[in-house]
């Protein structure tokens, strides 16, 4: 499924609807839908907030696919300024409430929920590729 998105936070609502449809069509469980939609929210929000500092309306694409029986791949491509979200330091999840900072938490959650996250810059575009496993352990045990 190829989804075209604009650099506008209101696109997140439409993205969620499209992802829900995709997950239903591909038999993805509610729990995995939650993880996938959260990952996509974080990485699409990053593009909306940082890729186009000049403003104006821009369009970028998300390619959402089921790979084999047990994986969903998400490929996000934008023609914004070079931006590697993986270059950020992970947040310090051990610090106290007073000292705790929020920066970098979004991409940290993406890394935690996914199997593979890769960034590349080719053809003047940022490409972020995320793969998650959608194996349903409970169902496997029942079978």
């Amino acid at each position, binding site marked *: 499924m190829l989804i075209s998105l604009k650099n506008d*936070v*209101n696109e*997140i*609502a439409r993205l*969620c609807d499209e992802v829900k449809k995709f997950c239903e069509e591909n038999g993805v469980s509610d*729990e995995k839908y*939650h*993880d996938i*939609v*959260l990952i996509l*929210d*974080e990485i699409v*929000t990053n593009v*909306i*907030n940082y890729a186009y500092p000049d403003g104006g309306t821009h369009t970028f694409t998300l390619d959402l696919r089921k790979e084999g029986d047990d994986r969903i791949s998400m490929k996000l491509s934008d023609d914004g300024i070079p931006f590697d979200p993986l270059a950020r330091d992970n*947040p*310090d*999840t*051990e*610090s*106290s*409430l*007073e000292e*705790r900072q*929020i920066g970098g*938490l*979004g991409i*940290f*959650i993406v890394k*935690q*929920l996914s199997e593979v996250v890769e960034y590349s810059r080719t053809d003047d575009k940022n490409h972020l590729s995320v793969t998650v496993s959608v194996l349903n352990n409970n169902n496997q045990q029942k079978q």
Partner: protein
Amino acid sequence: MEVKSTTTDGVTILTPTGRVDTSTAKAFESAVMDAINANKKIAIGFNEIDYISSAGLRVVLMAGKKLQASGGVLVLINMPDKIFTVFKMSGFDKILKICPSFEESKPFFN
């Protein structure tokens, strides 16, 4: 997204509904800050949201910091497993109070 607000035993219970993301975080923040300005005992319920992104987690963290600084109490309640997983991986389970239900959170407010 909407944020329902009720008061029980002197505790303001906020229940956001739908998605707590970048596009709704401002409304969530306003509702939380209004509640904090009116009461120092706050519970936030997470049983009616689809998901909470880092933009929403920022608001929860800010609320926790503000209430701790002012001698208030924040307890997070009614959290489904999938949402708790996100709080846990963020390390928020170590710095914020999380209870299965409002009933079980009551000792924190006394």
